[in-house]
């Protein structure tokens, strides 16, 4: 997503405000469409969180009961912190696991090879996440592929399904390709002369990474981390099918409340809390990404 940021600020020659039939034909359709099918739904969901449910039917009202009910429930807060922590761990882990791979792609392979690697990494992003998760289910199961292979060397069986490991593997299926792409593109854009200069001045390789590469790719890395967090935080498939859902994450809570309980207003409360949390985290992330304070590194 970082790619078209520069495009948005591209200067045009005809930059004065023109309003005629031609300009409106291109400007208006999306406004109309997004109001009807994006702003409408989201605002209605906020309104719905104040509605009442009586005899399994929703009636329009303005009561805070859903909010107070949800906020007084322990399971809601347990779920909130659990989701926050596991999404955070997933982000950290994905960033760390992705780094050596992105580093290799950015500095140790030819440009052609890198282009092909990114080409391949885009593929899973647009293919069925559901099927890949189900495939992991079969691979990680107690009698699944990994344990069957391990049994040949008399190891195992290890229980991986219905644990946090399962959840994290599922999250990574979703996030790892994206994070590698973003990290690689960021690092590949670093001026190679800076790295060479550091090397010629006698800087050790790990110090080059720490003092040159990471500070220079800060913005891209934080954006990758924010995307990774959003994807993990909002995913219900991995914790449900691979994590066993005994500890429900917030998305599972939404699912249960909507599908089985018919309690749409309470699901809306959970959804709004999630959105506020995500916006706060994205905001902090982007602020840090574009701040300059890191540049005067005192170490």
């Amino acid at each position, binding site marked *: 997503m970082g790619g078209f940021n520069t*495009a*948005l600020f*591209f200067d*045009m*020659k*005809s*930059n*004065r*405000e023109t309003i005629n039939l*031609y*300009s409106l034909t*291109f*400007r208006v*359709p*999306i406004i109309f*469409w*997004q109001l009807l*099918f*994006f702003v409408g*739904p*989201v605002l*209605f*969901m906020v309104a*719905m969180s104040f509605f009442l449910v009586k005899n399994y039917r929703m009636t329009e009202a303005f009561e805070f009961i859903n909010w107070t009910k949800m906020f007084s429930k322990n399971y809601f807060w347990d779920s909130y912190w659990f989701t926050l922590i596991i999404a955070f761990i997933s982000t950290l882990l994905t960033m760390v696991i992705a780094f*050596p*791979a992105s*580093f*290799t792609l950015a500095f*140790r*392979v030819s440009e052609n090879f890198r282009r092909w690697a990114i*080409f391949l990494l885009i*593929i899973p992003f*647009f*293919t*069925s996440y*559901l*099927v*890949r*998760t*189900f*495939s*992991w*289910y*079969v691979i990680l*199961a107690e*009698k699944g592929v990994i344990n069957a*292979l391990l049994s040949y060397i008399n190891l195992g069986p290890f229980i991986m399904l219905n644990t946090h490991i399962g959840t994290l593997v599922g999250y*990574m*299926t979703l996030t790892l390709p994206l994070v590698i792409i973003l990290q690689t593109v960021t690092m590949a854009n670093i001026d190679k002369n800076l790295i060479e200069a550091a090397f010629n001045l006698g800087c050790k390789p790990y110090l080059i990474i720490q003092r040159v590469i990471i500070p220079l790719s800060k913005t891209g890395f934080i954006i990758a981390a924010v995307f990774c967090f959003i994807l993990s*935080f*909002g995913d219900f498939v991995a914790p449900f*099918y691979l994590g066993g859902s005994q500890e429900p994450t917030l998305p599972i809570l939404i699912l249960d409340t*909507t599908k089985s309980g018919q309690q*749409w207003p309470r*699901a*809306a409360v959970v*959804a709004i809390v*999630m*959105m506020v949390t*995500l916006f706060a985290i994205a905001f902090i992330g982007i602020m840090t990404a574009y701040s300059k304070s890191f540049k005067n590194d005192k170490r």
Partner: protein
Amino acid sequence: MTKDKFYNLILKFYLFFIFVFIFTPIAFSIIFSFNSQRFPTIPLGNFSIEWYIKIFNDAEIWQAAINSVVVSSITCLIATFLGFCTAYSDYRYRFKFKGIYLALVLLPPTIPLIILALAMLAWLSKIGMSGQLWSIICAHSVLTAPFAMAIIRLRLNQMDPDLEAASWNLGGSEWDTMRNVILPYCRPAIISSLCLTAAVSFDEFAISWFVSGLNKTVPVIILEIVQGNIDPQVNAIGTFVFFTSITLVITAQIFFLTWQMKGKK
């Protein structure tokens, strides 16, 4: 230098391992779809196409496949149309509240699907549009329009701004210029965008599951089968789904890479 070569080797091995991790689930899904065992594991059972025969004879799956094709093909047209209009507006004009305008378009993919799904379900029920194929199409086009916008915007960025002005000076109207200059210039990006938005729509399950009612699409069927029990049918359906989306994504990328490379020269 030998030390450097050693590091290089380790790093490349690591990279290989990461690619294995990413593509393992895809590979196993395909392998297991031809496997006779009910609970697939290693050692593999016999080669069999029974799961394919089973889904082939399942009327519900056929219906879902038709639904999916209808939804994704209409979605990709709407999303690409909206994406093109927005990208062009952004390229050509400056206007008040442009920041908000662009945020409105680009925001939906950053919101977790389950939240969009809940919001869509509630809203579409309210305005009486829930449970139809149309409901899925509307929701999907909101979700995928930003992808279309991004791809087409990148293409427009490569266009010489004087091209449009030259066409006007030669006497073409704005509409003529659009039809004879801008649209042909954007054609590869438009094809890329059609393929990618169709692929996203074809694989999307959360929103479809919430708003589809009885008109299930293929991912919704997969979700329902997976909820029940281990059933290798999923692998067979999944393999079909994979090949459909992979074909779309690769077609999109071929068009994308072709014009990217031409643009550089």
